[in-house]
């Protein structure tokens, strides 16, 4: 091998190495994180890709931390925690779940919803679970006990449309703001929503609420 060949091979190897490293990272993170944090987050992203988990929520969590000038350790910990929650959500919701469903499922788990309830929701609802999971999470964050919130959303899951579930969540929040106890508000409103769902099914020509 001549000197020219050796130099050319070296240049090619260097090119492949640099471009490979660049591709392994998300370019949006390159100028937002310091090199140590970037390496740690990059390793977590690689693990997520290997596990076939959605990477975008992890990138966004790192970007959020960078925007808020969080400590590097805190950013890495937040990304690692979210990756774990996405994994649990995927186990509970199934491998066919969309990235949006997994993201919403991870938020529900963070709010203390049980993985078993996520699995039940998947079994009962044929449509996308994103709005139902988001409503469940928001109810719990708003003060409804996780068991009560899960029971309410599961009761609606089979027949209610996304907009009806979203209306239910808003109605519970209004009642809580007006002084109702969160559990009572959820129980009362789920009955009302089920009644509305049944009526809508019986009278399909009834106009929807705007």
């Amino acid at each position: 091998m001549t000197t020219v060949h050796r130099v050319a091979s070296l240049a090619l190897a260097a090119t492949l190495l640099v471009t490979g490293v660049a591709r392994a990272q998300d370019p949006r993170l390159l100028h937002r994180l310091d090199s140590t944090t970037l390496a740690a987050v990059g390793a977590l992203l690689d693990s997520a890709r290997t596990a076939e988990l959605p990477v975008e929520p992890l990138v966004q969590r790192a970007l959020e931390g960078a925007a808020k000038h969080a400590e590097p350790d805190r950013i890495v910990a937040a990304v690692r925690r979210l990756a774990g929650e996405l994994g649990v959500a995927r186990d509970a919701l199934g491998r066919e779940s969309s990235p949006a469903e997994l993201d919403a499922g991870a938020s529900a788990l963070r709010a203390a919803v049980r993985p078993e309830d996520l699995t039940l929701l998947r079994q009962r609802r044929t449509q996308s679970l994103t709005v139902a999971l988001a409503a469940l999470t928001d109810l719990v964050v708003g003060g409804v006990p996780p068991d009560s919130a899960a029971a309410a959303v599961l009761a609606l899951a089979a027949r209610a449309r996304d907009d009806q579930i979203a209306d239910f969540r808003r109605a519970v929040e209004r009642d809580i703001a007006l002084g109702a106890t969160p559990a009572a508000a959820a129980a009362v409103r789920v009955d009302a929503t089920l009644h509305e769902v049944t009526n809508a099914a019986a009278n399909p020509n009834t106009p929807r609420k705007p």
Partner: protein
Amino acid sequence: MFEHDDDALNRMIDRLREPVEMDPRLDARVMARVASRGFRARAALVWEWLRRPRAVAISPIAGLGLAAAAALLVWALPAHSPQTVTPPAADVTPVQFVVVAPGAESVSLVGDFNDWDARLTPMRADRDGRLWTVTIPLPAGRHRYAFLVNGARWLADPSAPRAPDDFGTPSSVVTVGG
């Protein structure tokens, strides 16, 4: 014999030296013929020029420089990932964000729909400078966001559910159906 030949030769030379009367439309005709060869003929010439093999001499240091430049180019270009593709307009819903921030000089909407970049979605104040609003299209899903006041103070949306906090500052969530 030789003088006769010289005379003849000189006459021929003189004749040849006489200016030729050319058709004044010759230039126009030539240019018309060239033009009539068309784009395909010229493209064929260019293609032939491009295909012709050539020996290119390059020093090792120049080769390394070219490799480094190629690597830098790839590094600098944004990666194309399905999750970063802007969704088509049909899959997005306009969502209005409103916050009361009297006396603020600037308010930005910052969230996972704009890569948490405070420069991308500035909000506009009403005449009194109290109510700041912006409407943006959002794809289906659950989105985390917050308001950044004067580039320094983070505010959650009081009209939206709170997001779990990882960084010691408030955030909110909005869910777009789908």
